[in-house]
């Protein structure tokens, strides 16, 4: 943990380049939820030459499927899901302009290469800390694939969502760095 940084969406090339693996970031603004089924659908739309459910420019995708909202609340518990399952789709979406993702767990080499090539950033949220993260969400609205239930694309307005830079635009990653620092045999 090196610094506490506060950031607001949308992201730009400059803001992304300032981030280093291990930085703690409190994120405010708009993030879009999309996980397995939504990624599959977005890639199918791209193949057919159709447009994406939201503009990727400066946008953030959060790999998450929330719990239902209780009455009077914008959303239920909403923590990150394992990002590795989206690895198959991510290079395609980054080619389309996506630069910022939030999830949990290490990405494959193709995704890391795409992050370096397009100067993107991959944040990790704390897996399982979902009740706490639900409290960072001020607003939630389904904007695509309603039929997918929890897997629908939601536009969330978040305030101080705690995330950690897991892979920075140079390809450094906290998972390997952190593990190497504490591994002993």
């Amino acid at each position, binding site marked *: 943990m090196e610094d506490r940084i506060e950031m607001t969406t949308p992201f730009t090339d400059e803001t992304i380049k300032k981030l280093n693996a291990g930085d703690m970031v409190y994120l405010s603004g708009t993030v879009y939820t999309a996980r397995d089924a939504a990624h599959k659908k977005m890639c199918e739309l791209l193949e057919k030459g159709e447009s994406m459910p939201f503009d990727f420019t400066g946008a953030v995708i959060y790999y998450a499927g929330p*719990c239902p909202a209780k009455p009077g609340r914008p959303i239920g518990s909403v923590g990150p899901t394992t990002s590795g399952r989206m690895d198959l789709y991510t290079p395609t979406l980054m080619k389309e302009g996506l630069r910022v993702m939030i999830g949990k767990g290490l990405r494959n080499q193709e995704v890391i290469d795409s992050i370096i090539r397009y100067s993107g950033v991959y944040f*990790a949220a704390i897996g399982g800390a979902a009740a706490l993260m639900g409290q960072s969400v001020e607003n939630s609205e389904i904007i695509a694939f309603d039929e997918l239930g*929890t897997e629908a694309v939601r536009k969330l307005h978040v305030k101080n969502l705690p995330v950690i830079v897991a892979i920075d635009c140079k390809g450094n990653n906290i*998972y390997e760095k952190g*593990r190497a*620092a*504490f591994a002993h045999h």
Partner: protein
Amino acid sequence: MRTIQSENITELVEELCIKSNCELPGDIYRFLTTGVPKEKSLLGREILYTLVKNADIARQGRDPICQDTGMTVVFVTMGQNVHVEGAFIEDAINEGVRRGYEKGYLRKSVVKDPLNRINTKDNTPAVIHYEMVPGDQFHIIVAPKGFGSENMSRLKMLKPSQGVQGIKDFVIQTVSEAGANPCPPIIVGVGIGGTMEKSALLGKKALLRPVGQINENTQLAELEAELLESINALGIGPAGFGGTTTAMSVHILTYATHIAGLPVSVNIGCHVTRHAEGEL
């Protein structure tokens, strides 16, 4: 013969679905709170502290600890003198899951079949394991299982000649490859022996043992301690960001096996390894 009404089973399952998803078991809560000062990574300590805070928020607000409220695994222990009146027991349990996941605002994560993947929208069916015992008891454990950790679980049919070393290597390899994905600090459930499916069930059941409870079998207790030390030396740490707390504990269950075989299953439980139990 003792008669139990199926509606009472449904009500119990409903209550346990909500309780298990919103209240972190006391043994894990204690581990997380007492584990903060022991973790050597500053970021790791911050993560453990955040998990405690998350558990407090969930308990107070009756909110799910994790958004992955799991596939509902149910263990039924039923005395052979018990008779269930009303609905079929399986239907009664699934109705309890249906009601619990609706009333508790829990996520519905189950798809009807693995190939076509259409959500059943009520988290049914549950995965139900029945165990018949003598007498007239009726005991239920509801253990919702998230798939971040379930996906990182593995099974291997070892050769008897691979022995204890083979078991150790397989357990360590499984946890090492899982890395950050199963949301460490994890509980490692290890099922050894039986047939293929028996070892998998033992691995799952091993996750139900409270953290901190020592295995009554001395040989297994020593093996658990040794495995825990090796796992925590991997450096994966809380949330996988590096640290000394990768696993809370290793739990081993064994069963008789065949002269030709050594089945080993490693079922990984996340830091929200949930279970709640009740009796009728």
